[in-house]
């Protein structure tokens, strides 16, 4: 059952599978042959560019070639999923892969993509991947709060939970790293936990964080629910005993685990 995001049939699953298993040169050769057989196969072109970013040994030539391939995808058709994907990865190349990286330009490209194609998966990803750069770095606290507020608004409009959730986790991380008020971090974590954090390590962390934040902001019922959730789901976590103790000490404790 496809997520129906990229609204186009994917024909080269085995090519993508070798890239997923980090066998970049195998992936690259696969897509190169696929493209050779059918010059108009945009998926093969896109696959070639994605693989080239990590074919070893990494050389500047590879990166430039990947950029050229992505640009050619955009020229032919900027609107379809491969056009948008190419714009997203061009910005990523500028952000992380090119030497020297040009972060400001890359971030403006990502935000432009997010504005122009808010519904497409690439637009939503652009927002997610631009968020940390808007929040971190030495800027005034007031400017940081502004960015947080703006991202919070746009985040709420994201349709895909796999992308919305990490965005709110990023906002919460920023609050912790820059000591912003606990209520704000708590709201972001609650928004992230609307549909269950996927990675168990991250989920265990989130439950404990929510419990502590709720306790600090006085919402003891919320604190108890999340500490109890952690206590029941993660017996094998090094904080299990400590959370049990906290649950005991929480005022107004009816019958509780330990």
């Amino acid at each position: 059952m496809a997520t129906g995001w990229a609204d186009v049939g994917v024909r080269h699953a085995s090519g993508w599978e070798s890239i997923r298993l980090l066998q970049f040169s195998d992936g690259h050769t696969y897509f190169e042959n696929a493209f050779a057989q059918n010059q108009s196969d945009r998926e093969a072109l896109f696959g070639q560019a994605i693989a080239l970013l990590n074919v070893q040994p990494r050389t500047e030539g590879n990166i430039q070639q990947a950029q050229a391939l992505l640009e050619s995808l955009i020229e032919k058709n900027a609107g379809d999923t491969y056009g948008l994907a190419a714009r997203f990865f061009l910005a990523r190349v500028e952000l992380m892969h090119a030497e020297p990286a040009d972060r400001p330009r890359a971030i403006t490209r990502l935000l432009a993509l997010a504005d122009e194609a808010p519904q497409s998966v690439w637009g939503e990803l652009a927002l997610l991947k631009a968020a940390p750069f808007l929040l971190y770095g030495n800027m005034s606290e007031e400017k940081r709060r502004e960015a947080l507020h703006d991202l919070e608004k746009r985040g709420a409009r994201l349709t895909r939970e796999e992308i919305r959730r990490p965005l709110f986790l990023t906002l919460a991380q920023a609050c912790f790293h820059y000591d912003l008020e606990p209520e704000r971090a708590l709201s972001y974590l609650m928004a992230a936990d609307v549909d269950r954090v996927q990675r168990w390590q991250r989920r265990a962390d989130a439950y404990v964080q929510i419990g502590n934040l709720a306790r600090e902001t006085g919402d003891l019922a919320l604190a108890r629910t999340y500490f109890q959730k952690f206590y029941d789901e993660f017996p094998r976590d090094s904080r299990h005993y400590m959370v049990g103790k906290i649950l005991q000490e929480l005022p107004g404790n009816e019958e509780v685990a330990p």
Partner: protein
Amino acid sequence: MAPQTVSLRKALHEWRLYLIVLPSILFVATFSYYPAISAVYHSFFEWQGGEVKQFIQFTNFRRIWNDQVFWSSFGVVSILIAANILKMVPSILLAVLIHRLRSDKWQYYYRVLVVIPMIVPHLVVLFIWKFFFDPNLGFLNRILDATGLKTVLVHMDSLFGWGVFREGIPIAWLSTPDLIVPSLIIWGFPWIGAVGVLIYLAGLQAIGTEVYEAAELDGATSWQKFKFIEFPLIMTQIRIMLVLLIIGTLQGFGLQLLLLGDSGGAGGRGMVPGLWMFNRGFVAGEFGYACALGMVLFFFILFLTYINNKYVRVDK
């Protein structure tokens, strides 16, 4: 006598000579050069030993320029080289002593006895030396206590203020910074290199017995016999061993790794270039940087051997 120079024309006639050296070159080129070249190749990469490599031109070499630990490790290694050169003397003396013996039978028996220790695997030798240095059960401390040398050392310590030897406290040879280099030097007492002794004996072999009789006739003392007959003859062998020794000590790190661990022991006093290369490669996982360190060390040794060939010319 130096090899006979051969003009190009004559060389064409004698082409078969190249066939003689060809097999050796083929073997060495394929099975020794090929891995060595991969080290040169990787010194220009940020590489963790796996498939992921990033070509970074000379960043590794720029980093080496201000790598304090690397340059200070040359200080330690030059002390060790100086000590190793002095440690050649016992092997030369032993070879001369054996050579001067009248009876051929004993010369032969001693030759065999010199080689026997080489049969014993390295693990056994290390086991013995670990006992030697052990602060509490060790042999060295026991001898020092028994012979009263310990009290002498303690006295000298208070005199010169080393702050290392203290009454009633066993000397921790390998974990006190000031004692690490001396321990590395003491290691291997009485410093007989079976390889050296054999090579010197082979060199001395060429002196006929009549040469000694002539020297004895005009009343040469044993030192003069050594100075005028034996020493000049084994000069080339000594030069070979000297070159091998310098290269070995500069590259070597096995002893330091086993006795002191990969961080060079207390105060990092045992850190030698080879051990720093091992540490960067296998502990910090920076194989590219370790290869670059290897290249710098290689050029340093090449420079040393070049000088050695140029200025330590031995006229036969």
